[in-house]
């Protein structure tokens, strides 16, 4: 199974497609809300959004495919012989990328809010600066194009990290399924799907992604160790199924993921890093990965809580001191510290969306 469908690549594509779909759905919803009277204009602008998105996707996929073709033609044979080390290094690169992306995915439900905030902010600026017409006319085309291109290139970089350790024939199917899943999720979001279920879905996806990354850590370490052992024993080929007995914790005669007849164990290896030969190094590094993830998550969560609490307290304090007419822009320090997603009675006052977007104003989207 691992040889025809690369799970990491699937998730990269899925995530990037989802975010692109979210952006498109936000824009389209925005258009529906803002341009309530002029149906013709709304349709024209909506078409722009679709066109920009489609072009962005096309270019991303073309660049990605070209990259993969070039890689397979020239890159693959560069390191036969020291294969163990290269596989290991690129696996670790993929681990970092997948972990970062997995954590970022947890913030997907905040993406919508982020975009709405950005749009309103831009409209604020537009009010202040007043720009020309030309950019505005094609703004609805340029925004999705640029956004999707950016997301697409991000995906390519992520995939680059993962592809080093992947067979080329496992890529196409994973890409296609990832695109399809991403579209589906975006469509659900557009239709205003139940936020709670989507949130659970993204949480589950992150769980799976991190499991994958942990498994990759174990595989990377095993790959390094196999390389070193091969050098110590002057191994002629990299098979042999032998291992360094001094650092071994289990060696099963069954359940070998390299045995092509038993597909199940191959799947276990792709998903969880399972091997019938377990070394101290791979076990320790696997556990260490999870410890790092746990520490990072706890730290981020506590920091996020304290910032959100401070913001909430400050706005409570301010709203009790000022008139209710003023709007407040939230300072977004960085992406990780996003405004609280679900509107609550107290937090409602901090959301800017209602005020700004309600105005019938073309937005200078260049500043978003």
């Amino acid at each position, binding site marked *: 199974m691992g040889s025809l469908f690369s799970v990491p690549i699937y998730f990269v594509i899925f995530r990037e497609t989802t975010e692109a779909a979210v952006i498109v759905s936000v824009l389209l919803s925005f258009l529906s809300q803002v341009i309530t009277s002029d149906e013709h204009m709304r349709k024209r602008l909506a078409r722009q959004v679709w066109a920009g998105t489609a072009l962005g996707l096309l270019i991303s996929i073309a660049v990605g495919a070209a990259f993969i073709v070039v890689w397979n033609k020239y890159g693959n044979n560069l390191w036969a012989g020291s294969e163990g080390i290269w596989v290991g290094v690129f696996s670790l690169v993929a681990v970092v990328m997948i972990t970062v992306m997995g954590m970022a995915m*947890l913030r997907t439900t905040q993406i919508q809010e982020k975009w709405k905030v950005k749009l309103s902010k831009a409209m604020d600026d537009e009010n202040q600066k007043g720009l020309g017409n030309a950019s505005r006319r094609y703004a609805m085309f340029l925004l999705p194009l640029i956004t999707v291109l950016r997301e697409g290139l991000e995906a390519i970089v992520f995939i680059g990290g993962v592809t080093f350790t992947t067979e080329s024939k496992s890529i196409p199917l994973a890409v296609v399924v990832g695109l399809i899943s991403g579209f589906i999720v975006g469509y659900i979001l557009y239709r205003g799907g139940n936020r709670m279920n989507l*949130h659970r879905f*993204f*949480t589950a996806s*992150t*769980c799976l992604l*991190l*499991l994958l990354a*942990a498994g990759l850590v174990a595989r990377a370490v095993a790959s390094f160790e196999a390389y070193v052992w091969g050098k*110590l*024993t*002057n*191994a*002629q080929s990299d098979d*042999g199924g*032998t291992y360094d*007995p*001094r650092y071994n*914790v*289990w*060696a*099963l*005669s*069954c359940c070998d993921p390299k045995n092509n007849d038993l597909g199940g164990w191959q799947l276990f290896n792709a998903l*969880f890093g399972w091997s019938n030969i*377990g070394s*101290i190094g791979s*076990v320790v590094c*696997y*556990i260490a990965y*999870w*410890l790092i*993830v*746990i520490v990072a*998550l*706890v730290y*981020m*969560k506590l920091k*996020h*809580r304290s910032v*959100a*609490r401070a913001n*909430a*307290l400050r706005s*409570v*304090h301010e709203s*009790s001191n000022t008139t209710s007419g003023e709007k407040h822009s939230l300072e977004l320090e960085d992406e990780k510290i996003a405004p*609280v*997603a*679900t509107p*609550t*009675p*107290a*937090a409602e006052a901090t959301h800017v969306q209602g005020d700004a977007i309600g105005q019938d104003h073309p937005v200078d989207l260049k500043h978003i």
Partner: protein
Amino acid sequence: MLASIKSLALLALAATAAQAAVVTYDWNITYVNANPDGLHERRVIGVNGQFPIPTINVTLGDTLVINVINQIDQPTSLHSHGLFQTGNAQFDGPSMVTQCPIPPGANFTYTIPIEQHGTYWIHGHNRGQYVDGLRGPLIIHNTNETYKYDEEYTFALADWYHTEHEIMLEQYLSIFNPSGAEPVPESGLINQRTDTKFNFVPGKTYRLRIINMSALAMFHFYIDGHDMEIIEVDGIDVERKPVTSFYVTAAQRYSVLVKARADASQNFLVHADMDPAMFDVVPPELQLKVQGTIVYSESAPLAPNGVTDEYEPFNDALLVPVVPEATQKPDQIFPLTAAFSVLNDYSNKATFNDITYVMPKVPTLYTALTTGNLSSNPEVYGKYAHPMVVKHNEWVEIIINNDDPGNHPFHLHGHVFQIVGRSTGKYDPASGPYPGYIDSPNPSRRDTVLVPSEENVAIRFKANNPGVWLFHCHIEWHLQAGLATTLIEAPEVMPSVLKIDPTHIEHCKALGIPYRGNAAGNEGLNLDGANIGPDPLPGTFTAKGIVALVFTIISALLGLATVIWYAREDDAHISAQVAQAKNTEEEH
């Protein structure tokens, strides 16, 4: 019955009483420096300060006496390969099987009645000393040879290493050699040289005795411009068999008749090609094609080199012994499966039926002679000597499965055996009777047989020689890796036939080796303290494996739980705090 063995031997002696003589060799085993292939001088084990060691020549009916003085710093012993040693097992030679090794500085006299004739060799049988040079031809002449020839030459083929065997053995058996790659020799030799010459006179008939004294290599033997007829195999005269080439594995011997050419116009090459399939790798500087020269005239030119890589297929089971011996239905059948694997000491070892051979604490022969009625109980010899106990005059069959990618030559001490069957694959006794029997009234006989990779061979012999006889692969590295079993033949008869010379016991005492009792040196069946070998790896989870796996699962679950906790919205928490703050403010 007991007397009949001795009288048989005496009869054999009496038959040639007229010329029976005591032939004595005084051998000081010494270290010598030598450079036989001209590429590298090194320390070797020689005799009387010489290398190669002297050739032993005796005649049927003689008594061969070798007075050995061990003047190297290691214990040693000598095995006369192929000699039956009927009623004489204590002089067979393998260390810890039939004797304690000879301590450094000590004397040991081998007294061997010669009851057969043909081409044999003598070599060290403690550790791999014969690889370091302690090996040489042992030619037994018959007063009336079966075939007529004018002269004879000996071609002692051997592989040659530049490193001492103990060093190579340590590397071979280390945990860093899990694939069990044998050391590859640096060259091949004929009569311990690379430039041998043999003079041929036109019109004469020559008997060439070919011996392979290698640790590992197998040779293909052929002569440019001359026909060969095989007339002897491992000491058994056979009906003439014309061949263009034949293979000789380690420890095998052949005699061929070659008629010299009619004129002396050319000289010809003799070829002994080492088979690359025996070597893990073939380094480019290794000369596989070893050559000697047949010289008709010093000034004659050399005939074109007929070296080839294609050899005529050769099946030694088709050779027909001149003295017929019919086979009989076996009383006992021992199926043995030879294999190599990494055992639980993490080194690559050889096993017969998953048991690797480990030397017992007491020489097995002494155990058989000092345990009374228990000597017929295999337990008394220890599991890792892999004892096969047979009764006197039983017919014994051994079916050897070679479950390994390599080819192995197997040798039985104290006997020649009939080759009664050959087949491919692995024979499982549970599947029914052996399918590969050759139906022959006079099967081919020899003492060292090649079992090719993934094939099997059935051999048979009559247990008419009370004693303890080692059965093992004659690739020296594999013997050290444990590819051996011990045949305990007629232990019930041994005490009346065999007497151990007190000097042998003195040598055991000098080395601190027990010489009475079972494999552990104890009385009865108490085997506490016996030498225990490594066993196959369990291939399942051990305690530390389970602990490690459990911890990985726990860490993954904790991680996933943290992810879920992280992703939960904090609104309730924060709104509570905000509400609290509001309340606090409103109070002011």
